[in-house]
């Protein structure tokens, strides 16, 4: 069964305290792994897409990496405005049924000043 698991469920950091969020997956036919940021009451905001093991992408204080079984979202020197829920999703090809997105439960990040 295809699964996406994110850890931890919640993470509290002090401003400037770097850390990582994890997304592990057991899927076949992976067509991409996505990271999103979601603020309360809003739709998810796209951050990154990763396609193959060893790939890395960066945006400001965020860096996403991918292995064959998991992805990490590294947050370097976070600021309070980085507080949000971070969602991981995998895109699996389903032939004539098109792509299918499966989301993890998310990690709620709080950065205290």
């Amino acid at each position: 069964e295809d699964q996406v698991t994110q850890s931890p469920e919640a993470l509290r950091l002090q401003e400037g305290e770097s850390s990582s969020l994890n997304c592990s997956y057991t899927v076949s036919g992976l067509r991409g792994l996505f990271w999103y940021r979601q603020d309360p009451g809003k739709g998810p905001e796209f951050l990154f897409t990763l396609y193959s093991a060893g790939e890395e992408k960066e945006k400001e204080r965020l860096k996403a990496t991918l292995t064959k079984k998991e992805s990490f979202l590294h947050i370097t020197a976070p600021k309070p405005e980085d507080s949000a829920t971070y969602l991981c999703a995998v895109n699996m090809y389903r032939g004539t049924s098109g792509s299918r997105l499966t989301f993890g439960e998310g990690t709620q990040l709080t950065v205290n000043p």
Partner: protein
Amino acid sequence: SQTIHQWPATLVQPVGSPLSLECTVEGTSNPNLYWYRQAAGRGLQLLFYSVGIGQISSEVPQNLSASRPQDRQFILSSKKLLLSDSGFYLCAWVSPAGNTIYFGEGSWLTVV
């Protein structure tokens, strides 16, 4: 550029009343469209997806239905709402190459 719109943004409906949430996409043709539901503090649950007009796949049995009357229009409906239908509903579009996902602004549904 591609944009995706949902409405209404917020609604409060009594138990047993009907529901219609609408999603439209601009700037693309023949998109794969998805309806997700998100309970408070939880991840996104896939409800329906559609690869074309009139083609609907349901992921979980429930009180809801979906329709694709036009290429860029996706509608989520219910004949009689339940309390458990409350949540945040999100429409999404996946590019044919599967490398870009756009979400609508979301619709908050509260069933009372």
